[in-house]
């Protein structure tokens, strides 16, 4: 009796243990890094083939796909064709004519390559404006016990359709008498105001402005860059199709 029960249990265990999981999915063959903005000079799309884990060449151009056909369409069917630009710093595609994309407008991207096709869409964030500070405002240095800094209180109007804002702050510093170089800080926020204490180093270049840029970006850009989502706003390829509206203001620091 007892042996029979054990036999039954073992038979059931054997039967139970056979779970047929047959799963496979074709991995993406290429990646896309596409950000379209209201800034004509900054339109750039990069397309790279994916690599095996064993490939160790770190030069992006080694993987760059040169024969892609790229179009961007809007709701009113306007179409922009992209052309490839060779660059030592990394090849990329840009519109055949300088193009500014309009805030609040939905754009569709189509890519045809030898590695397959991809498509996606994004809606540019809405228009907005920086309300504080004003262009060319000057700030006085505040001296603390240990450091000197200026306090910049940034404010801007809300951009609809945007997921958040990146504030980019840059200023020039002297490097041992050579040409000044820029030091850049970046901040991420969902609010429409941000207070920044900018530490003023000893080699700060006072006759050059602090350049403050604000980028209102869409959720695809955020998902890919900050949430590690492998394909955001795209189908058929990994990467992202993001959009942004960028505003800038220059301010100065008064030397005392």
């Amino acid at each position, binding site marked *: 009796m007892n042996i029979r029960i054990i036999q039954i249990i073992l038979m059931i265990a054997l039967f139970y243990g056979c779970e047929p999981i047959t799963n496979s999915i074709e991995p993406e063959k290429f990646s896309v*890094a596409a950000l379209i903005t209201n800034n004509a000079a*900054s339109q750039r799309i990069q397309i790279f083939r994916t690599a095996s884990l064993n490939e160790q060449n770190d030069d992006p151009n080694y993987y760059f796909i040169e024969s892609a056909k790229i179009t961007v369409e809007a709701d009113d069917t306007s179409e922009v064709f992209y052309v490839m630009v060779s660059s030592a710093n990394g090849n990329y595609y840009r519109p055949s004519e300088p193009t500014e994309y309009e805030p609040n407008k939905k754009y569709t991207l189509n890519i045809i390559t030898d590695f397959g096709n991809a498509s996606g869409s994004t809606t540019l964030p809405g228009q907005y404006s920086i309300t504080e500070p004003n262009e060319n405002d000057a700030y006085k240095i505040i001296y603390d016990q240990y450091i000197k800094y200026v306090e910049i209180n940034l404010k801007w109007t809300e951009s609809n359709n945007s997921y958040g804002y990146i504030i980019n702050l840059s200023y020039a510093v002297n490097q041992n008498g050579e040409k000044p170089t820029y030091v850049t*800080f970046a901040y991420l926020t969902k609010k429409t105001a941000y207070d920044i204490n900018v530490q003023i180093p000893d080699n700060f270049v006072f006759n050059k402005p602090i350049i403050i840029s604000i*980028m209102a970006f869409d959720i695809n850009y955020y998902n890919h860059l900050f*949430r590690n*989502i492998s394909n955001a706003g795209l189908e058929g390829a990994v990467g992202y199709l993001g959009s942004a509206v960028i505003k800038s203001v220059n301010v100065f620091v008064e030397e005392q």
Partner: protein
Amino acid sequence: MKQLRIYFLFILSLLATISSTIISQDKKSTVKGYVLDATTKEKLSYVSIFDSTTFKGTSTSKRGYFSFALSSGAHLLRVSLLGYKPVTKKIFVKHNETIEIIFNLTPLPIEIEAVTIQGEKIKKNIRERTYDLSVADLREIPQVFEPDPIRVVQALPGVTAANDFSGALYLRGGNFDETMIAIDNVPLYNPNHLGGMFSSVNSDIIANEELYLSNYPQKFGGFLSGILNIQTKKFSNKFSAVASVGISSAKITVKTPLFKGSLLASYRRTYLDLVNLFLKDEGFPYSFNDLFLKYSYPLNKKNLIEVTGFYSQDKYILFTRGDYDYLDADPYPSWGNKLIKASFLHLFNKNISLNFNCFVSNAYMNSNFLMKRYGQTEYANVVNSITDITAKINAEITFTGNSLMLGAEVKNLFLKYFWDINSNELYDLIYPVQDVFFDYAPNPYRYESSENIISFFILDQLLISKLFSIQVGFRSTYLRHLNKNYLLPSFKISFSLSEKIEIAFGYGRYIQYLNSFKERKSENLFAPFTTFFLPQKESQLSKSNHFILGVYAENLFLNSKLSVELYYKLRQNLTASYNYTPIYRNEDGYAYGMDILFKKNIGKITGWIGYSLILSIKEGEYYNYFTVYDRTNNFKILIGYQFFKKWRINAFWTYATGTPYTPITGKFISANDYSNDRDPNIFIYNPSLNWRGLEGTKNSMRLSDSHRLDIGITGSFIWGGFIVKPYLQILNVYNSSNPYFIDNKSFYDSNVKNKEIRGSTIIPTIGVTFEY
């Protein structure tokens, strides 16, 4: 191959040890018999029979039968059952003699303490839950640092852990968030300290634990898999005190009469932060403490009022080191639970009782950290809160062969989450740091939601005949936000094939209205706060149908217990997260398997051998895949050996199949984060290009299998009026390097790979408990 052979030999030697014990036990004398109710002459089940001479014991079967082996000589047997007057009897047995005894227990007059027990008498005749754990079990199973009422459950079949240090409970192919962990029936939404290494509940306050691996009775609700209900010590007029000192914490528990009532108070605190001070900030700047208070006040012989309070807090002191220009770190990041409960128990007569209770259970996490350094501002603002406000009334009616429970519950859930984190130091620890809250969590993030849930339930347990019993339950749950009512039936039929063998079949339907979005393994190592979300539409409400078939045998040989349970769970609308858009989905799935437990309680060598087969599958958009908590094969062996009468050495060996993970099958170049080196005149001109891993089929690979051996020695002796109970535990004796998770965050260079992070080590623990 060599390792495999060693493990095989190890298992063989364990089996040989058990076999030799079995043989040696046969040669001893035996005492057997029945325990009866002195007035009704009914056979009493689950009566404790304890030999005060040898400290051995057993309990009666469902039919009131008991049998256990004794050495020849004089023995003092104490027979006890709650609600009955204990009986003590001295016996003398000769070598190889078998003697039969019938004990008659007299019911005690009705007392407040016995109210719940009257109901239990019937309930325990029907097999309701798979396993019960006593305080003694807590001490016998070697555990990390100190006896832990939640982690101890992981030693049982059907329960799996994410890794060696995680306290999260995965029951029968369900996710950790599908298990209600409750203290005196009140759910705890943040039941762990230190991301799961310790549970929030101090083991010294516990009377017993009830664990439902699946098919739980409908007096509970709202969770898809099972229930772990930790029951604290009840009203008592006797003074007792327990103080424990361990390697990481100290605790004190006092139970004392107070103003005609009884107070149970317990406090525990770690030393880790103090050690850190001693090491001049080179240690781990972390601490936790918890406080439990319960005051029971009998108004008279028929009415009892109880007020319970529980508070737990973890603190992590950020940035105690390094240079900074400005620091505002008060309060320090902290998280834990706050709970208050009031209950009123009224006894109409011996068979009818009414229980009303209301509680507020809150889990929280707060951080208001701000630091400025080198012109950069780092901050971690977190305000997370889950609040459960519930009022519940239930009546229990007990009469011959029938135990009926009726109840109603009104529950209000309030969820509020906010975080805004910008801290390079935290990113160095976990990136993205907000993923500790849920998979692919945004940052900053704000969420607020609430729900009213109204439930009614009825649970009837009937003994149809001596061989046949049935439990029928029904729960009706209304969710205001969804404006929908759910009818949730359950039943369980038990049939005795013989005096020793019973079979049972059960069905239950369950819903879950609080779900987490946590599937990835890497974050399970440290999760200070798990966020739960309410369904916004019907298709997001998780549902499950449980089917169970069990065979239970008692005393087939050597006073052992054998239970075999097969289960099948049909699951709907489970949360799933993906590395592509859309990130979150609700998917159906199923889980099935089998749990086997062979347990031997009597003799110098006791313990259990457990095996679980667990298969847990989700039906994804394109294919079916194993869930991350699928651990197909699990072996758990506990062997305890008693020596010098009051000392025990326990060995616990566990083996589990590795958990599935999504492998990196290739890599790709993409923009990665905004960088600090771009041309400032053109905002996005030169995005930094980085390598990322290209994920393959979801959960198509597995981590390496894990196994380890833990050994513990416990004992007791009397010293200066105290019972002193020292313990020594060594975890992972043979230093098995068990895996934790796959590290895929190495996407900053081209060297992307599936890197298995391992790191278990030998952990010795020593401690001592003083009881008065």
